[in-house]
């Protein structure tokens, strides 16, 4: 068993070389952040009510956005992957648009669509936590959709055919075969969406404002701190890093099965 593991990934050496390069780009800045962080002062900088409030708002907003993305994003991904209809390729692309738009523009679009002066009616969403959740959802959902749709494209359709032949109707089939067969991708996509929602800044501040205790999430707190008290901004960033590392690592190991 052991013998097989040593160096037997079957990957060519060049792959390791390029991988190391990629790692460098991602890790060096993080190392810089860690090394220059105000470690001695960390506790003072973070132990304020304001920080706790921001953490609370951030968790509520990001978890709600992840849940929202999951509930509507997975079905949307299935429809995009499985149903043929005219104009599908345009729709499919529209879904990925929030990835491309600068977050400020997404915020402006949200104001036009769901703002107080929206042509579609008045929703009372700006400056509310619900509004922040909406902004985060719009930005985060495309991640989930793309992740799930990609997985669906590589699932052998004969498994669902087989389920149908065994008498399973569409809903049962979807729940017991369609969904579980791509579970790793759904988990990964939800984590991605959650992470993106946690880091969301531009659309939130434009659409939902920067109201303490209501829409001021950690990124908004960081950005406010950055212009006034850079040390606190770095401390808050480390906090976000820690929170997300803990969540991501525990999820990875528990939920994502290894082959």
């Amino acid at each position, binding site marked *: 068993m052991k013998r097989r593991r040593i160096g037997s990934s079957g990957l060519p050496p060049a792959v390791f070389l390029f991988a190391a390069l990629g790692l460098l780009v991602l890790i060096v800045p993080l190392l810089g952040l860690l090394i220059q962080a105000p470690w001695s002062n960390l506790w003072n900088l973070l132990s304020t009510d304001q920080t706790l409030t921001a953490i609370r708002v951030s968790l509520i907003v990001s978890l709600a956005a992840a849940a929202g993305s999951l509930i509507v994003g997975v079905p949307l991904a299935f429809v995009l992957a499985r149903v043929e209809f005219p104009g599908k390729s345009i729709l499919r692309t529209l879904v990925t648009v929030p990835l491309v738009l600068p977050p400020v523009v997404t915020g402006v679009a949200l104001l036009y669509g769901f703002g107080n002066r929206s042509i579609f009616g008045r929703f009372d969403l700006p400056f509310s936590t619900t509004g922040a959740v909406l902004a985060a959802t719009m930005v985060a959902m495309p991640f989930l959709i793309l992740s799930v749709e990609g997985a669906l494209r590589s699932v052998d359709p004969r498994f669902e055919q087989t389920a149908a032949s065994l008498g399973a109707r569409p809903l049962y089939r979807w729940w017991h075969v369609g969904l579980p067969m791509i579970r790793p991708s759904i988990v990964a996509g939800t984590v991605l969406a959650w992470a993106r929602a946690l880091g969301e800044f531009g659309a939130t501040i434009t659409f939902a404002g*920067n109201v303490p205790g209501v829409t001021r999430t950690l990124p908004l707190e960081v950005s406010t701190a950055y*212009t*006034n008290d850079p040390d606190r901004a770095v401390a808050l960033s480390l906090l976000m890093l820690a929170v997300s590392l803990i969540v991501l690592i525990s999820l990875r190991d528990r939920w994502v099965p290894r082959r």
Partner: protein
Amino acid sequence: SNDRTTVDVFAASSLTDAFSQLETRFEQANPTVDIRLILGGSDTLRRQIDDGADADVFAPADESLLDGLTVDGGVINARPYATNQVEMIANSGVRTDGRDLFDWTQEGVVVARCEEGVPCGMATDVLLAEIPVRLGVVTFEPNVREVLTKVRLGEADAGFVYRTDRLSAGDDVVDLGITSASASVRLAVAALSDRTEAIAFADFVLSDEAAAVLQDLGFGRP
């Protein structure tokens, strides 16, 4: 603290230091009032107010942003309380002795300034029109604190910031003495609701106590 009345103060992020101190003092004097600072770029805040945000008090980075603001059909009362002046600063590690301070066009020299359109950017434009500093690579930052940060960190060699920002940076930056009285902004505050607490806070910003705080930070008198 649930029985405290909340007053939402929309303030420009460049005023964070000043208004945090004013908040503390006002709340000490009026324990039943909770001042909630909602910070952002002046334009963003103005747009949010135009879009119906419930702001009690608005304190933008320049009084012009209060122009044309109406509440419940009435024109609001913009009350000037301070001025601030744009100055050119350099990172303290930049050698300024023996060089032509009006020439920053050398290879590799970066000068940071506020982007056009925001109050500090307009004041910088006035300054540059009056004193023709030659600039090489210029980066247009979204707000003045970003300019200050870039100069402080030494990523940019020099920059244009408010006097209050220079003072807040201490020894990290040096004053190049390039400034002009006309390159300044006038700060004004306005109560947007007729709640007594809102008006009281606006009054407080114009009080002598507040003036002392503002003077310590480097603001001028209007």
